[in-house]
Every structure is written in structure tokens, then in C-alpha cells.
């Protein structure tokens, strides 16, 4: 065991899970537990604690059908992911596991976990393993356009979309959202938000929420808001608001009102 460890790093540097020579240590698990908590590995595992592929499939199914909360599922999925990594299993099951975890993370608003799964999925799809890669391309697009300001990333995500991706419903929706955001067409944005396929709406949610804050801000600044009886629209009554609405001072406001008067000069001359 120590011989394997010292083969992979000659000097006495402290190592992390990633530094271990997994190829040499690839274990064949024998554990039959479907439910297993996540314990972060810092050294080579005992095969009796690692579950083989068929058990992991059952474990995934168990998580998918479980009624328990996100924290429980997240923990179980991390444990499944670790067992897969340790045994170097990189196939459609692995993809399914990451996809499931990613979707759950999205629904629970856990963006960091989602991003972790997304980067693993990108790598797996790139190796040609089958999965819902159109669905996740769409999520990737929405992430880059709504949750970052990086134009270069957006450009390269759009450029790397395969030709047939644009026929996919979820990808089309994501591209339509981009168009709407780009031209400032928020009416279209909200329409798309209501009719979002898959989990696109979860990624749009951060942009879509903000209405309450907007209302509060307006009320605080003296606007009079009412709801139109006909179509439920929220409106500002500008006539009534015009007396109470707070207008901030312009930056170059002067107390005597005439910005072109050279007050300092005048004062200097008269003294």
C-alpha cells in the first residue's frame, strides 16, 4: 500500500484524494448496502465499504423514489459518486447519477453543487457517453447568460452547440430567453418563464424574482400603485404619484439654482 503511494509522488508532499494513483488502486467493491452515508475518503478504501455497480444502480433508484429531503438525497448521491470514482466507473450510470444530482440541486437552488455536477457531465459527454446532453447544454447556456457577466463564455457556449442541438425544445427555449434578454423584451422573458420546459425556470428564477423588491422600492419613494381590475396588471398612477414621488437631486445641483453662476469668483472679487 505504502509502496503504491510512494510510487505516485516521490517526495514527501501531503496528498489529497486526487493525487492517489487510482489506476493502481482500482478496487472492486463488495459492499451490498443500498443506503450509505457520505464519508470523504482520504486514503485507499476498503473494498468491503465500496458498492459494486449493480448495487449502485439500486441505490440511485432508491434516491430517485425517496420522499426524504434534499440534504439526505445530496448526501446519498455524493456517496454514490465517490463509489463510482473509486472504481473508475465512467459510463451511462455515472452520467445518470450526475444528471439526477444536478437536477435536484437546481430544484433546491443549490447552484454550487449544480455547477460541480455540470462540469463532470461536460467531461463525460465529451468522452461520448450518452445522456441528456441537450438538456444540460440548455442549462449551461442559461447559467452563463443569467448568472455571469462573461460575454466570452457565452459566445463560446453558443459556438460549441452542435447543429442538431438547436432542434431540441429545451435548447430552443434557452436561446429564445437569450434573445429576449438581449433586446430587453421582458414581456417575452416572463412568457418564456411561464412556459419553460424541463428545469429552465429554476435558472431563470433569480432574474424573474425582484418584482416584490421593485414594488417595495417604488412605494418607499412615494409611488401610488394599484391593480387594474381588468387584467390584474400592477400599475403606477402617475397623476396621483407626481406630488408624492421622490425625485433624487441631480449630482450637480447648486443651492442657489443657477449652476452657471461663478459663485467662488464673485465671492473672491467682493472680498
Amino acid at each position, binding site marked *: 500500500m505504502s509502496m503504491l503511494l510512494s510510487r505516485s509522488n516521490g517526495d514527501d508532499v501531503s496528498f489529497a484524494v486526487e493525487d492517489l494513483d487510482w489506476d493502481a488502486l482500482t478496487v472492486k467493491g463488495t459492499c451490498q448496502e443500498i443506503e450509505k452515508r457520505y464519508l470523504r475518503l482520504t486514503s485507499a478504501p476498503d473494498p468491503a465499504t465500496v458498492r459494486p455497480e449493480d448495487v449502485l444502480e439500486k441505490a440511485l433508484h432508491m434516491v430517485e423514489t425517496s420522499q426524504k429531503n434534499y440534504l439526505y438525497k445530496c448526501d446519498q448521491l455524493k456517496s454514490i459518486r465517490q463509489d463510482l470514482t473509486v472504481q473508475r466507473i465512467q459510463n451511462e450510470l455515472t452520467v445518470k447519477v450526475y444528471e439526477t444530482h444536478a437536477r435536484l440541486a437546481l430544484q433546491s437552488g443549490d447552484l454550487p453543487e449544480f455547477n460541480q455536477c455540470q462540469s463532470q457531465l461536460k467531461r463525460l459527454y465529451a468522452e461520448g457517453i450518452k445522456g441528456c446532453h441537450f438538456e444540460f447544454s440548455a442549462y449551461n447556456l442559461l447559467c452563463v447568460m443569467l448568472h455571469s457577466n462573461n*460575454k*466570452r463564455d*457565452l*459566445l*463560446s457556449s*453558443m*459556438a460549441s452547440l452542435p447543429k442538431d442541438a438547436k432542434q431540441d425544445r429545451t435548447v430552443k427555449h434557452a436561446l429564445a430567453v437569450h*434573445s429576449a434578454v*438581449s*433586446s*430587453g*423584451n*421582458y*414581456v*417575452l422573458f416572463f412568457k418564456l418563464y411561464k412556459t419553460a420546459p424541463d428545469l429552465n425556470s429554476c435558472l431563470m428564477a433569480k432574474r424573474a424574482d425582484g418584482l416584490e423588491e421593485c414594488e417595495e422600492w417604488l412605494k418607499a419613494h412615494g409611488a401610488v400603485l394599484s391593480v387594474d381590475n381588468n387584467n390584474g396588471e400592477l*400599475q403606477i398612477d402617475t397623476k396621483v404619484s407626481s406630488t408624492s414621488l421622490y425625485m433624487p437631486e441631480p449630482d450637480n445641483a447648486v443651492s442657489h439654482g443657477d449652476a452657471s453662476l461663478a459663485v467662488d469668483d464673485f465671492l473672491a472679487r467682493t472680498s
Partner: protein
Amino acid sequence: MAAYLSMGEAHRRIADYLSRVADSVSSSDGAALASLLAVSSAQAPTPLSDALSAFPDFPRLAADRYPHLSDLLPPLLRAIHSHSLRRFADAYSSFEKAANAFLQEFRNWETPWAMEAMHTVALEIRLLAEKADRELATSGKNPDKLQAAGSFLMKVFGALAVKGPKRIGALYVTCQLFKIYFRLGTVHLCRSVIRSIETARNFDFEDFPVKDKVTYMYYTGRLEVFNENFLVADQKLTYALVHCNPQYESNLRRILKFLIPVKLSIGVLPRITLLERYNLLEYADVVTSLKRGDLRLLRQALERHEDQFLKSGVYLVLEKLELQVYQRLVKKIHIIQRQKEPAKAHQIKLEVVVKALKWLEIDMDVDEVECIMACLIYKNLIKGYFAHKSKVLVLSKQDPFPKLNGKPV
């Protein structure tokens, strides 16, 4: 190609090359040294590379003859040899060793006599890295040589960013770094060199050679396009255009490829003749759509040339031109209404705009149109307001469609 090369002849050729290198160093002949270091421009077998193949013990020959250059000459010969055998990854690794040795010597030389040679090394290391990465990628390995070349050039930059006459050569190396970062897609790394050039007191921008300044402005202009700082991008790309040698048409074309979208964003349209002259006809429909207010044409043009625009990075900039196209459309409606019924021309029913868009095969309802009109008012492309209940856009009687006047939307 020599069918048979005697050991004596091979030895003679190698010794001749080595002595020319050593002589150029001892006589401070920068130009001669530069041409001797141009490894990658050598076309397939040369007399020297034949000699190296015939005389495999050349590294020891070099080290024995010129011990004071024993860090530079053996790897340099190895690089030439590997390159002639089209083993580019090996050629790169050897050249990098030679380049590091050269940089050490360069740091010790007081005067900048070897600047031309330093520049050749900078260019060559990039070209070799590109060849090496292509080779690595096709054989399924990780292409990391260009990144390594970038690291080396940062060291060179550090050696040049000093007080004294050597600093003149820094901009050339900066441009090589830009080319690497743009190729690798790691453009955020440009920031630190740019900061050094533009804020450090060592550099007076005007002192640099014109061709380096043009290249520098071209790349930094492109970066401003990505950041959508159109006014600055306009300044930089225009500088590059004006100072570029008019004989280098392909360079002019490259500059225009990015300058045109910038100009469009600030409301300046090129003539079709310009697009024809420089073969930039992918912009022709975009320009026409702006003139006509034809949203359908703009969208079609973006779709047709999508790959090109995405690759060059101007796609998002061109997309944003939609608002200007809407402005033109509304202006046309206004003009038509003025002819039919001048008294009420400044009132535009939103229904009319919806109809006009439908005619262009674009399906938008009244709410969406109202939203777009609100955007246009907010961005000062239209002066007016709308009567929400009656769904009418009321234009200001004075200058309802302000020109951009060189300011971006």
C-alpha cells in the same frame, strides 16, 4: 537532397553554423544572430539538418567547441534537428531550453544589440508551440506547449520592462503574448501586461515602433469590443486602421472586421463599397436592415453568418443592433403617417407597429411591442411617452428620433 553525406562534410557544416552563431554574439551582430535562430521557418531538409542527421554526436561537438554557450547551442541544434524530422513537440521542448539560455545571456548584455534576435526567439517559440500543440492534439495528448510558451514570454517581458533602452522591445513581446492568449481563449491574462504597458512609468507609448503600436491597438481594441466599451474600442481600432501600412490589405481587413460592428453600435454605417473592397460582405445585410428598419433581415443575417460571428466574437454586439432597427421602423411609420395625416402623425397606435412587424413575419403582441417601445424611450432612441390605456405611443413634437451621434445605445 544529398544521397550520401560524408561525416567530414557534415562535421564541417555544423561547425560552420556554430561559428557563425558564436561570431554574431562576439561581434554584437543582432541581425545575423536573429536569422540564425529562425528555426521554424526552415523548409524541410536544409543542408544543416542533413548534416545533423548524419552526425548524431552534434550536441557534444557544440558543447566542447563553445563551452561558454553550452546551455544554448546543443538544445538549439536539437530543436533544428527535431523540426526537420517533423517532431514538433520535441523541437519545442529543445527550443524552449535554448530560449531560456538565450534569455539568460540577454539579461547580462548591457546594450539592446540583440533585440532583433530576442524578437525572433519570441516569434519562433510561439510558432513552434502552435505546431507542437497541433501534433499533440492529433495524437490524443494534452496540447500544453502554447501555454508554456506564454509563460516563457512573460519572463521575457519581465526582462524588457526595465529602465533603459531595452524597454523599446517590450511591445513586440506583448503582441506575441496577445496572439497566444487569444488563440488559447485565455484573454483575461492580457490584463496584467496591458496594465504594465499603460500605467508603468517605464514606458512612453509614443516611443514604440509603429507596427507594434498598430498590433497592440488592434488587440486591445478587440478586448474592448468584448467588454462592450464601444467608444474606447472605436478609438483603438481607428488608431490601428489609420496607422496600418496600407499595403497590408489583409491586416486592414482584420481591423475592419471588428471596427465595423463597433461603428454600427454608435450609429455610423459603412458604405457597401467599403464592404465589397475588403470582402466583408457578411455585414451587408446587417447594414441594410439598419437603413430599412427591417428586423427580419437582421435576424436572417445573424442566422446565416452565425458561426462566423460567434467565432469572431461580434455576434452579441450585432444582436444588440435590434433596438436601432426598431427605432428605424417606428420612424418609417411616423414618416408615412405624416404624409397621410400630418395633424395626428405624432401619435402612433401600438397596433400599427404590431401589424408592421407581422408584415415582416415577426409575431409579437401588443404587450411585447409596448415593452420594446419602453426600452427605446429609456435608451433615448425615441422621445415620447405612451398612453397605456389607449395603447398609443405619443412622440415628442421635437426631434422624436434622436441620432446616436457617436454615443453607444
